[in-house]
């Protein structure tokens, strides 16, 4: 004769209550930890975004604090403004220049400073120095380097790239490239550290096995290092895209958006409009930038994650 389990009349209720109580605590507690972040995020991110969206739909007079509802006409105005398209194109070109350099140069540096050789810590510090150099100092230094009588101009003449000393920041055709080099230089050390952390998480025995199997250093880099660094590549790419879309300081300090708007990026365009008290236009352009930044980051993450899966397969 088989006997079923003895169930006390109130046992179910008791167990249920305990389970519910534990679940509740588990659900509520995280919110308390999140409150400070949510408040900060709300105050400095969500509210400004909502306010910018609100302003973009008004003909807003920021000093008077009032504005008439004008629907999407601010968006229409920026989309018919040649300067806006030029700023958008400049932002895109800036990203095209900076993205591959920011992804690959720090990776190579990280591989180099990941070696067990004497004095490597000094190199790590040296490469990190630009990161902690204030942008104002960096901009002044690069302005001197780029000046007509500066070292870069001299080198370009010696290489035969220019007939006479040329300030790259002053020429419309080279100014954006010249500014983007400052961005690359400034971010080199920071991204190198990200890659360095990624490299140090790769098990050494993978390289040892590859070495025993006769793989060359280049083959190890191509088939082990790059695939294993895929998460770092994603991180660096996304960070570069977001930073590139909101590039401002180096441009404001070196060219001010010139010559003839050749280095006016989207943020510079927004800044100029805002300072001219065209806050509704600035807000509309800001919303466009936000949408583009979210879109580009999502696309980049999707593309990179599928590439990571391929590489791991």
């Amino acid at each position, binding site marked *: 004769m088989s006997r079923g389990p003895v169930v006390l009349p109130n046992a179910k209720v008791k167990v249920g209550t305990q389970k519910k109580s534990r679940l509740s605590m588990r*659900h*509520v507690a995280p919110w308390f930890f999140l409150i400070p972040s949510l408040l900060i995020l*709300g105050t400095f991110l969500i509210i400004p975004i909502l306010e910018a969206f609100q302003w973009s739909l008004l003909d807003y*007079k920021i000093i008077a*604090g*009032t504005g008439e509802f004008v629907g999407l006409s601010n968006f229409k105005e920026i989309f018919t403004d040649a300067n806006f398209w030029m700023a958008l194109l400049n932002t895109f070109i800036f990203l095209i220049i900076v993205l591959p350099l920011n992804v690959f140069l720090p990776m190579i540096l990280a591989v180099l400073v990941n070696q067990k050789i004497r004095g490597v810590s000094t190199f790590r510090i040296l490469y990190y120095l630009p990161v902690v150099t204030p942008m104002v100092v960096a901009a002044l230094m690069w302005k001197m380097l780029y000046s007509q009588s500066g070292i870069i101009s001299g080198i370009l003449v010696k290489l035969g790239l220019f007939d006479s000393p040329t300030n790259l920041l*002053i020429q419309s055709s080279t100014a954006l490239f010249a500014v983007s080099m400052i961005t690359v230089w400034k971010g080199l050390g920071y991204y190198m550290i990200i890659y360095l952390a990624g490299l140090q998480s790769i098990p050494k025995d993978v390289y040892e096995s590859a070495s025993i199997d006769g793989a060359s250093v280049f083959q190890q880099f191509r088939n082990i290092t790059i695939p294993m660094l895929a998460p770092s590549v994603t991180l660096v790419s996304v960070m570069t895209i977001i930073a590139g879309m909101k590039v401002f300081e180096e441009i404001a300090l070196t060219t001010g958006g*010139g*010559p003839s708007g050749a280095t006016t990026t989207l943020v510079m365009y927004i800044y100029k409009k805002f300072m001219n*008290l065209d806050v509704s236009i600035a807000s509309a352009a800001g919303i466009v930038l936000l949408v583009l930044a979210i879109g580009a980051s999502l696309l980049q993450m999707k593309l990179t994650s599928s590439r990571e899966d391929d590489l791991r397969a």
Partner: protein
Amino acid sequence: MGKQINKVVTGTLAAALSMSLLAGCNKEGAEKTSTSKSGELSGEVTLWTASLAGEPFDTYFDELEKKFEKLHPDLDVTIEDIPQNEMEQKVLTSLTGKDVPDVVNLNPHYMSNIAAQGGLLDLTDMVSDKTKNSFVEGPYKSGIYEDKLYALPWYLTTTISWYNGDHFDQAGIEDLPTTIKGIYDTAKAITDKTGKPSYYPVINDGNTIMEKMVSLSNGKSMVKDGKAVFETNKDIIDYFTYTQKMYKEGLIPQETAEGSLKTGQELFMAGNTSFLEGGVTFLGPIESGAPDVYKASKAGQPLESESAPVNVAVMNFAVPAKTKNKEAAVALAEFVTNAENQLEFSKTAGTVLPATKDSLEDDYFKNPGESPKALGMLQASESLERAKVLIPPTESSAELRESTKNIFVKNLQGKLTPEEAVKQLSSEWNKAFEKSDEKVTF
């Protein structure tokens, strides 16, 4: 239960965010009205100056503050200096918040931008006719926007020319050029001797080019009822043609495209450029930074016909509409800009002119001495006789300046022909006036 709590927490957070948003949207705030007891001024009043910190200005403003407080014992005056390059941001931030200064030092173009949004107090009926008549006409008009007085003129700088006497001697040139062709010939002769670019046209944010265009037009209108009419103006096309030619031939330094007077100062100080136009303040850093160049520096009249109008750059004092103490603010603005205090300020600064008629009669401006700076002051006070605010404050001024700078640089670098550049500029100005619906003439 858990779901309910989640909903409560989410709802509370959403409500908190909405409340903050609503609070953030409320721009009115709690404003205190101005206070005056039985006609006597009382309370607190704050005045902002632009980049006038350190000696000798600290002593000057301390004395000024004491004198005003002695006149109005119930008033507490605070004078605060804001760096020039932060002024616009700081003014904008304060005007959109509650902590506004009562009197603020602005340039006419930014003043008109703020006035257009109702940010400044209309002083038309608050200032006496005696005060209004005490100012030189041109600078006084720079405080007027849409027929209302929004600011009182304080100190001025007029455009003069500065040149390196040694370089001119080397090239055997005795007289300053007065035409654009003359500028080209002079620049070529000096560059041939020194081997360095010699002429630096200051662009700034585009305003100096706009002013130069008006000077060169010499009486011919540039804009009539909000329509640009300079498209076929030969003098302006010549100006664009010769500057492009000079840039191409290396007579103008590449750095000109950056536009700033500061860069021109650095090049002049290093002996890498020989002549340019600017205010008397130009020589300040050169006196301490390059004494030899300072000694060789000479001042002259602007590089155009002697009958052409010259621009006067004005720094003025405006009163934000949100001031909590209107009467005291206006009284302070009038006090700081009266003839006696303006004269004293000009002597303290040593490189600016006062905006009051009486102050300019002082011997200090008639016989300033023999130093390069003093001779510059003499030239500036002479050019003041034909000086005007050449570009009136308009709502479109930011767009006009930006398009002028961009198109002038494109022309300079040969991206457009001079004719194309002038045509494009004319079209950009028309677009700006059309947008703001302004029927200005200048």
